[in-house]
């Protein structure tokens, strides 16, 4: 049987936040009055969401890195040996150099801006591939937001 001494000295932050959320919801908010009461319940909700986000962060970061690698590989394959408009070329390079929200935003903008030059098929192929990555990302965020 675990004893007090067997426990980690420092409670993991996500677990601590989750416990604080429960305390806020069950012990503090019910004993609060006036306009502070809904705020106390809202604090419990915020703490709960923070706890969940923090708990999932390591797994999400790993999945995100893996998805970024796949996206870069697929974009490289889809655009290999093609002569692309300058804006799209630069944006694809940007994603390859650092795949993050900023570079993907730039790529999305470039794809729409260059749509005519790219042609409907290539535009659809590239945007669809980006959207696969975006769907995976939003699914992860929904795990702690919904």
């Amino acid at each position, binding site marked *: 049987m675990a004893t007090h001494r067997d426990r980690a000295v420092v409670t993991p932050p996500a677990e601590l936040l989750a416990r604080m959320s429960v305390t806020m919801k069950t012990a503090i908010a019910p004993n609060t009055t006036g306009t502070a009461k809904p705020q106390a319940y809202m604090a419990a909700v*915020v703490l709960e969401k923070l706890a969940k986000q923090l708990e999932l962060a390591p797994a999400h970061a790993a999945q995100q890195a893996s998805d970024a690698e796949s996206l870069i590989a697929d974009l490289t394959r889809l655009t290999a040996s093609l002569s692309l408009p300058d804006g799209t070329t630069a944006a694809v390079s940007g994603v390859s150099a650092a795949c993050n929200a*900023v570079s*993907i*935003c730039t790529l999305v903008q470039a794809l*729409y801006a260059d749509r005519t030059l790219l042609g409907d098929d290539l535009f659809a192929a590239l945007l669809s591939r980006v959207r696969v990555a975006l769907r995976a990302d939003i699914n992860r*965020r929904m795990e702690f*937001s919904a």
Partner: protein
Amino acid sequence: MSTKQGDSGSDRQQRIEAYLTSRIPGADGLHMINIERPTVGWSHEIWLFDAVWSESGREVGRPFCVRLDPGNTLLRHMSSLETQFRVLKCLENTAVPAPEAYWYESDLAIIGKPFIVMDRVPGACPNPWGSDGRRYYQEASGRGVLPGSFTQALADLHNLDWRAAGLDFLGVPGPGKDFALGEVAKWKELMSLAGVVHEPILEDLICWLEENAPTTDRLSLIHGAYRTGNLLIHDDRVSAVLDWETQCIGDPMYDVAYMLSDLNREGTDLLSNLVPRDEFFRQYERETGLEIDEEKCRYYNMLYCMRSVAFWVSASGLYADGSSGDLRLARTAWSIPVVLDRAARELGY
């Protein structure tokens, strides 16, 4: 939800009393009673009360609503109290039910914040997001009077001769796609004021909206957030349309899309938790002479997704930068992914 006034607002109460005394000739010993401070809503500090005073030896009473701008309001960059005041003045003596606005003051020396004094219209505003509110609207729908009044008020809004009412100061979109593109630009600007936002799904959505903007055939006064919760109801009828913060001159389908949106109902097929869809279509089209364009409504619902993101970015930013201590605003940071998820689904992924 409302709270009874406590001591913390006593200074403001005294200032409001002094102001009203200065405004109402012969109001001797004016004081406020039955004070309520509604805590719903995101934008303004609201005082509801009866002012009573002695006039030529007899006691006189009058209900008032005072709306103050605390300076850190949501949508503060888009809609000032002065604009709201002007809109309400324009709506006087029209078919649109709205509170009569008496005075607007920008002088901070008076009660510390800009404010509007207006009539306190009789009625209640049940919260459609709570179980009590949902039950209220469900029962009202069954009685059959309020749904018609609700639809009629929207038709009256869209039928209003806004030029004659003097509402062209809101800005009149040009022909073609000007209205839709202008709305996209307006909400982009709001987000940029809240800070730099890097959300690829949002970027995708904005690009799609710019590429697919519909043309506008008829311009109307648009409320911009026409739903239960933004209306006062008295005796099963709409007694006042409230929350004049997102109004504009534009495509009436913009409001209709908001009505049709399932974002504005919960656990029911009734539009805005109140109106049967077929009845709404029949009455609205009959009263306005407009045919509801569901394809346009789909576009405007996508625009509402963008607007919601802008709204939540602005709201969560107010908490994050210390402008507001309201934890409801902090909570909205997690509403952003929910709306983005919806937008992605609408875009087909």
